[in-house]
């Protein structure tokens, strides 16, 4: 278990919406490495909560489907209530592999970073379609020009990140849906928090691609971020 090695309480947050097919495997593989796994069931209509609970996760349930950002925020607040030293955000759709958790935690363990982002573009992303790659490059450009996020951030929409307790308390992200990735990047890179990217492997399956973002979602994200400026 990682936390026994580093003497920190590490909690993994998995936001899930209708993920009953894969959530059990995700929870079990993460439970091997960390003591706590919190699944935030974001208003699923299937048995996601039951399966996650049986697999050993603590489960929180949103009565309505609010979006991944909202679920992560709920999970983060729960993790802080449980006195987490490090909070990890992961996707529950099978894209992320728990085996990358040690490398994600390593910079925090060494005390050189407060926030660690996993980057697909520093690691292997087998099966990443060129359309997705082009979309992410466009998002990266938008992040630089529109949001002032440094160009050295290679993955503009990474859902895999680790943060210390202090960082989690400091980063107050409000975007309920997919725009939370850019919002968190902006908040972190504009604060005095130390951040770093590490290479991670991402698996692209038909299921994860069908749940992933489309070109239209890119416009939605930009619009949500724009509205967020006015909706304080």
């Amino acid at each position, binding site marked *: 278990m990682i936390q026994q090695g580093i003497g920190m309480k590490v909690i993994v947050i998995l936001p899930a919406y209708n993920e009953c097919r894969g959530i059990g495997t995700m929870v079990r593989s993460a439970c091997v490495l960390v003591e706590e796994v919190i699944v*935030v069931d974001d208003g699923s209509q299937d048995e996601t909560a039951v399966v996650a609970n049986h697999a050993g996760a*603590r489960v*929180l*349930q*949103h*009565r*309505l489907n*609010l979006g991944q950002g*909202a679920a992560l*925020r*709920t999970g983060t*607040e*729960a993790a802080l*209530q*449980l006195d987490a030293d490090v909070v990890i955000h992961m996707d529950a759709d099978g894209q992320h592999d728990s085996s990358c958790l040690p490398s994600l935690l390593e910079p925090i363990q060494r005390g050189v970073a407060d926030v660690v982002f996993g980057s697909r573009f520093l690691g292997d992303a087998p099966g990443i379609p060129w359309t997705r790659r082009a979309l992410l490059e466009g998002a990266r450009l938008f992040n630089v020009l529109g949001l002032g996020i440094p160009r050295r951030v290679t993955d503009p929409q990474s859902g895999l990140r680790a943060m210390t307790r202090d960082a989690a308390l400091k980063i107050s992200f*409000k975007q*309920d849906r997919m725009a939370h990735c850019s919002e968190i990047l902006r908040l972190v890179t504009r604060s005095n928090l130390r951040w770093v990217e590490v290479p991670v492997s991402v698996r692209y399956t038909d299921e994860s691609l069908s749940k992933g973002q489309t070109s239209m979602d890119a416009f939605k994200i930009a619009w949500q971020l724009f*509205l*967020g400026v*006015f*909706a304080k």
Partner: protein
Amino acid sequence: MSGRLGLLPNAMLIQFVLLLILLVALSVTWKRSRQSVISRSEALVWSLVWIVAGAVILLPQTTTLVANFFGVGRGVDFILYGSVLALFLLVFKLFVALDQLERKLTELVRRDALKGFTDKHD
């Protein structure tokens, strides 16, 4: 040029209808003031708005003067551009209000999800 019914020129007909609407608005404004629904100063401000609108309807060339000041050729075009802008701002305000409402809903759902979380799992 005569109107469709041959009674009034086209321009006069629209002016007549708009002025009638403004007179109704003016009368309702002072009725509400008498009913103490709005204050006397509020009624005066609204009356001013209706009177200015009436002046623009009776003397449409005045809008051309304002339009020319802003670099727009015709007064009607200026009013149209202004209306589109006003509508855009109103719709945008609605979007922002909807976003704020969603955030309140999110907070409510979150509080509900976290209620007794630590107690339940201790």
